[in-house]
């Protein structure tokens, strides 16, 4: 994989469309939104870099769409154990978190431990009004045949829930998750994406956050080095609600995490924070579109990139403030540490503002480790390797400290430390 076959037409979604034709009769739920998605992909294809939103992320490796079906007999328990071990999470026993485990695009009931209280009923299909103008959302609406459906009733604090997606071989997995928080509900979702092989891990999350509800969505993207990893989050926020997201991207050959948040009720809050730690020829992209559609809302983004080898980090952040969204407070910060001569960072923070009483700002910086700081530490007897580690860690801390959930925070800390050790070894 990862080699474009000669003769594949630019932007062609033909491979995915063929797969849809082959399995469409077996896909659950309403066929209508799936057909709409297929029609949209047939007409527009997959984006090329000439499309503004995909300027920095080349989907060439996706064009041919050569991803296969899952092997239903595959036992993923050993793989899950390894993934959890690596994350410092318990596989079983008292300490094990309630979890939903998806292997190659389907729920594995045997590996999951369903949580109590909140309703995690089975996947019922794609929403009739699922948006299909976005290429990833269309791909998902066309092919997803499973996903988590989580409903947290009013006033309930559902605490922690672990969502694991495992990919293997050259399987193309498409998951469609739906998370609904009723008024005043709380949920802390920790997502771990991992696997083995040159697979495609593509998922869409639809969050519906009710009045005064709060959801934390922390992602650890540790997909296999040959994998393609795409996650697209749609979040709709009611009055005084909050979506607190964090994406730590470490894995995959090509990854894009995209968040579309709509602040629909007054005084809602959205955080799209993250860190991208990349080496070799990895590409990771964090793209966000935050629509302030109500007054008094607050959006915050702090994204850090540590790039080495020939890696490329991408940040595209767009804040759109509607006329009614007075007293908006929007903030974006994207920072990059370039640790090698061939690393690259591409940043595009965008403000689109139609209301006059707002406070919006963005900042972006890029550069190497500060020689003077390194010199200072070395002059105090700290070896170079350690001094670099301390500075990188300090650089990342601004972002990591924003993760409030302690379990999730510990998982991320561990993953960051392991990544750095792997680099400096």
């Amino acid at each position, binding site marked *: 994989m990862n080699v474009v076959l000669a003769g594949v037409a630019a932007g062609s979604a033909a491979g995915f469309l063929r797969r849809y034709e082959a399995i469409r009769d077996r896909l659950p739920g309403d066929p209508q939104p799936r057909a709409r998605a297929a029609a949209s992909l047939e007409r527009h294809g997959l984006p090329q870099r000439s499309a503004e939103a995909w300027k920095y992320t080349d989907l060439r490796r996706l064009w041919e769409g050569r991803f296969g079906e899952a092997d239903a007999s595959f036992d993923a328990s050993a793989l899950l154990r390894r993934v959890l071990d690596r994350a410092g999470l318990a596989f079983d026993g008292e300490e094990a978190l309630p979890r939903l485990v998806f292997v190659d695009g389907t729920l594995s009931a045997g590996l999951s431990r369903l949580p109590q209280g909140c309703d995690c009923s089975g996947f019922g299909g794609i929403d009739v009004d699922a948006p299909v103008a976005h290429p990833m959302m269309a791909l998902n609406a066309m092919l997803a045949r499973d996903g988590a459906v989580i409903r947290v009733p009013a006033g309930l604090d559902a605490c922690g829930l672990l969502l694991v997606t495992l990919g293997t071989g050259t399987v193309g997995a498409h998951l469609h998750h739906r998370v609904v928080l009723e008024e005043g509900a709380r949920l802390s979702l920790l997502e771990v994406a991992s696997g083995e092989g040159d697979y495609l891990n593509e998922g869409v999350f639809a969050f519906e956050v009710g009045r005064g509800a709060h959801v934390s969505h922390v992602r650890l993207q540790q997909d296999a080095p040959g994998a393609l990893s795409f996650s697209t989050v749609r979040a709709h926020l009611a009055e005084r609600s909050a979506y607190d997201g964090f994406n730590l991207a470490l894995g995959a050959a090509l990854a894009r995490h995209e968040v579309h948040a709509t602040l629909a009720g007054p005084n809602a809050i959205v955080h799209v924070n993250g860190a991208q730690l990349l080496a070799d020829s990895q590409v990771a992209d964090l793209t966000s579109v935050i629509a302030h559609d109500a007054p008094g809302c607050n959006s915050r983004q702090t994204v850090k990139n540590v790039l080495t080898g020939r890696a490329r980090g991408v940040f595209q952040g767009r804040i759109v403030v509607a006329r009614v969204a007075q007293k908006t407070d929007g903030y974006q910060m994207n920072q990059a540490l370039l640790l090698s001569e061939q690393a690259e960072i591409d940043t595009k*923070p965008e403000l689109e503002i139609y209301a006059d009483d707002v406070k919006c*700002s*963005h900042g*972006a910086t890029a550069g190497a480790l500060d020689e003077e700081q390194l010199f200072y530490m070395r002059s105090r007897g700290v070896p170079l390797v350690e001094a670099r580690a301390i500075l990188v860690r300090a650089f990342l801390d601004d972002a990591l400290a924003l993760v409030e959930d302690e379990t999730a925070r510990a998982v991320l800390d561990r993953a960051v430390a392991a990544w750095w050790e792997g680099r400096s070894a």
Partner: protein
Amino acid sequence: MPAVAETLNTVESLTQSSYKWGFETDIEMDLAPKGLSEDTIRLISARKEEPDWLLAWRLKAYAAWQTMQAPGWGKIGHPPIDFQDVHYYAAPKKKPGPKSLDEVDPELLAVYEKLGIPLKERAMLAGVEVPDGGEADGRDGRPQIAVDAVFDSVSVATTFRSTLAKAGVIFCPISEAVREHPDLVRQYLGSVVPAADNFYAALNSAVFTDGSFVFIPKGVKCPMELSTYFRINAKNTGQFERTLIIAEDGASVSYLEGCTAPMRDENQLHAAVVELVAMDDASIKYSTVQNWYPGDANGKGGIYNFVTKRGACRGARSKISWTQVETGSAITWKYPSCILQGEGSVGEFYSVAVTNNHQQADTGTKMLHIGRNTRSTIVAKTISAGRSDSTYRGLVRVMPKASGARNFTQCDSLLIGDQCGAHTVPYIENRNMTAKTEHEATTSKISEDQLFYCRSRGLSEEDAVGMIVNGFCKDVLKELPMEFAVEAQKLLQVSLEGSVG
């Protein structure tokens, strides 16, 4: 410098219609038939008595243009432009390129006097003889300015040519440069903005009619400021000027550009190309006060301003500095850029863009860091009022070899009223670990406290807003040559007229 007197008057009579440069002049014109074809291009080239290579170059650009599409990425909206409904050549019916000012049509001189442009050298040299229309007092001791006046498609007068010639500086209409200095023009024309660079640059390359040519030889510091004043006058015409400025090793020049047009209901097209070349240790400072007719309060009429401006810092330690105050035009689409190729070269971009009523501006810059230790600074101030939309769009690209490159970018937007939009779209691409890029952007409104303070000191609301806006833009205005800075401040106030209260 241009229009100081007029602007003063305008500010004094704020109740009247604010665009004071909107008069038409009835001058007998030599018009090419409407429409664009190879024949039109051959006709322009023939009228200009151009050499064959230039005609071939134009035709190549035209062929490229026909395969291109108007760019759609800007945040601007307008009905499709009918490129066949434009006269591509319009010249006052006198022999172009008069030998001295005495030969210039007195009616034309009157136009420029009305605009406040000093085309009379003696008046300036003596510093006492004030032309009609009232140059401001106290001009004694001010630096002299040489002016090239472009009226529709042709340059009608260029002042101070002999003084400049003594210093070795060439300052003349580009059509004349093609005849007098063909080797220089051929060497540099299209070397910074290639003929098929983009849709509007290709159009310009095919049909450009006039513009200024500046050549500053090795080691020469241009003895005075150079200025070109562009005036669109004829109906249904487009203006396509081309400016080429070359500063050889160690040379330096400061160049000013001003522009106005009559008030008309139809939209007129202006698609210019400016190319700057700076060799070792050379420096070029390019200042613009863009005041094309912006259309009326309902968004009717106004100039469509699609401009490609680019400077190449080819030599080591060379410097190109763009300063622009954009208050006019119905649509502004303009990104003065610097290609920082020479080691240690410096690019600067200082911009104030003001939009009111239904104006749309999508403007910014590109800084391409190619050489080692190149530096760039971007300061962009965007002010939106009325129902207008204003966008800063900029690119900072650090190439792998640009070790030690530095960029600092500051973009601030100010919104006046709740029917306008202000947008910021920076692109930052860094491919060198030793390079450092920094970008900051803010959006806010005029603070109630500041307004209240000014009001309590007896300022009218409009004056208070003008003062606060001028303060907001200070970082940019201070980069302008003095005469321009005065005019720009007044212009800001006039442009925002009617936006408060």
